[in-house]
């Protein structure tokens, strides 16, 4: 390990960039770092704990965790099969289907919320049927929050898993099939374990995205404490009524996001490219 580290350091040393590039890159780093430093500076530290543990903060945190975990679970259940089909199954119009399924990745989330209304709202395409058949009203409900989060977050998982599936060597699956494994068995016991790192990375990214979802949620699910007011909504609204609480909740969310990125360094961001092989 120490041998490896030394080698890596030396190779990094060889690529030291020109001074001008270092300076510009440092400005870019400061550009990203300053807002967070500013936030930490503005925080009323002496009250931080009490602000974080107020009933309204805890309610928002609990609701956010619940809904984002549901959204992640749904993203896995529906996203993995979708990624598999997109990666492996050549059917006419695949590019269009693929673009459609990834659209919410680049769409302004508010527009996503408006579209969700058009489909699942009370006067939307399916709104009446959902209510008549299942007694389900999605707008202004916690289920609506989960729906909005899943709509926005699932593409992250699909993209990650699809890329891994594409890069996978078919031969081990083929071998399993020739040894008598069913398609389903080969998928479950050979394919899935092979893409496990990508699946974990995709699930964590989707979870982080669901946790941060704002636009589609406030548009489609509305905003009510304990039912649909997740952490980002709570931050936005507390800015007017209780700025200290907004700052503290912001820092919690930044901490979570930062943790997610650090944990994904190897699998997704390629932060240290040589460590992949050692795992």
């Amino acid at each position, binding site marked *: 390990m120490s041998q490896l580290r030394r080698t890596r350091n030396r190779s990094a040393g060889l690529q030291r960039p020109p001074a001008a590039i270092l300076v510009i890159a440092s400005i870019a780093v400061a550009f990203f770092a300053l807002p967070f430093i500013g936030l930490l500076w503005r925080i009323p530290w002496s009250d931080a704990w009490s602000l974080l543990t107020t009933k309204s903060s805890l309610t928002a945190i609990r609701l956010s965790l619940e809904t984002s975990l549901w959204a992640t679970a749904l993203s896995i259940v529906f996203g993995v099969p979708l990624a598999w089909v997109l990666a492996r199954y050549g059917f006419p119009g695949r590019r269009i289907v693929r673009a459609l399924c990834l659209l919410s990745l680049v769409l302004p989330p508010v527009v996503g919320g408006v579209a969700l209304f058009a489909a699942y709202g009370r*006067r939307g395409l399916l709104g009446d049927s959902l209510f008549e058949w299942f007694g389900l009203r999605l707008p*202004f409900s916690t289920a609506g929050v989960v729906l909005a989060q899943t709509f926005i977050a699932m593409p992250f998982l699909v993209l990650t898993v699809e890329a891994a599936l594409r890069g996978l060597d078919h031969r081990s699956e083929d071998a399993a099939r020739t040894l008598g494994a069913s398609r389903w068995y080969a998928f479950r016991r050979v394919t899935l374990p092979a893409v496990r790192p990508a699946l974990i990375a995709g699930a964590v990214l989707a979870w982080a995205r669901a946790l941060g979802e704002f636009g589609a949620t406030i548009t489609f699910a*509305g905003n009510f404490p304990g039912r649909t007011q997740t952490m980002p909504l709570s931050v936005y609204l507390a800015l007017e*009524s209780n700025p200290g609480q907004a700052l503290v909740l912001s820092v919690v969310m930044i901490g979570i996001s930062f943790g997610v990125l650090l944990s994904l360094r190897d699998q997704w961001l390629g932060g240290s490219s040589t460590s992949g092989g050692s795992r």
Partner: protein
Amino acid sequence: MSGSLTVSAASSLQGAFTDMKTAFEKANRGVKVTVNFGASSTLAQQIIDGAPIDVLASADEANMTKVSDAKLLSDTPTLFATNSLEIIVRKGNPSKIASLSDISKPRLIYVTCAPQVPIGKYSAQVLQKAGVTVTPASLEPDVKSIVAKVTAGEADVGIVYVTDVSATQGTAEGVEIPADVNVTANYPIAAVSTSTNRALAQAWIAFVRGTEGQAILKRYGFGSP
């Protein structure tokens, strides 16, 4: 008179202030007015956070006081309009709402705003006076969002300003709230002390309070203070 002016105005003023902008620009060639509409609480916080705004027109006195307490007003606020509240329902009143107590009927979706937003505070006062308890489905960001949810049919009922109902031009209907439980919303206006164009800010305030401004406000259903 020249230059540009940025006015922050309560979202219930959207129609009236848009007309006033046109009239003011016509009367003062070379002047460019930009109006920024939103919940008064949002507008007040934006100014406190350093937004470059010349004039604030709020739908309540509490949010104006918040800016004043931050020493960000260059003069004492003056009242320029009043408003009252009305129940808003979709065209044709499909849920058959006739009074405030009907809002608490089961399975009705009622939306309002958070208590720091003027309409959220006013409607809570009205419901309390009428002795009606109702759990909202959502706390929307501003009064126009309540109107939007009701006219889109996603919510059944809300409480908004009388002027908001007439501004929907028929896509929504109002159900009157009796005077004894209604409240009067007072709209103050003031120049912001960080304004870079004090003279223009004062001219705008004078215009809003003057004959032409008051006539426009009256046309939209506002009362005069």
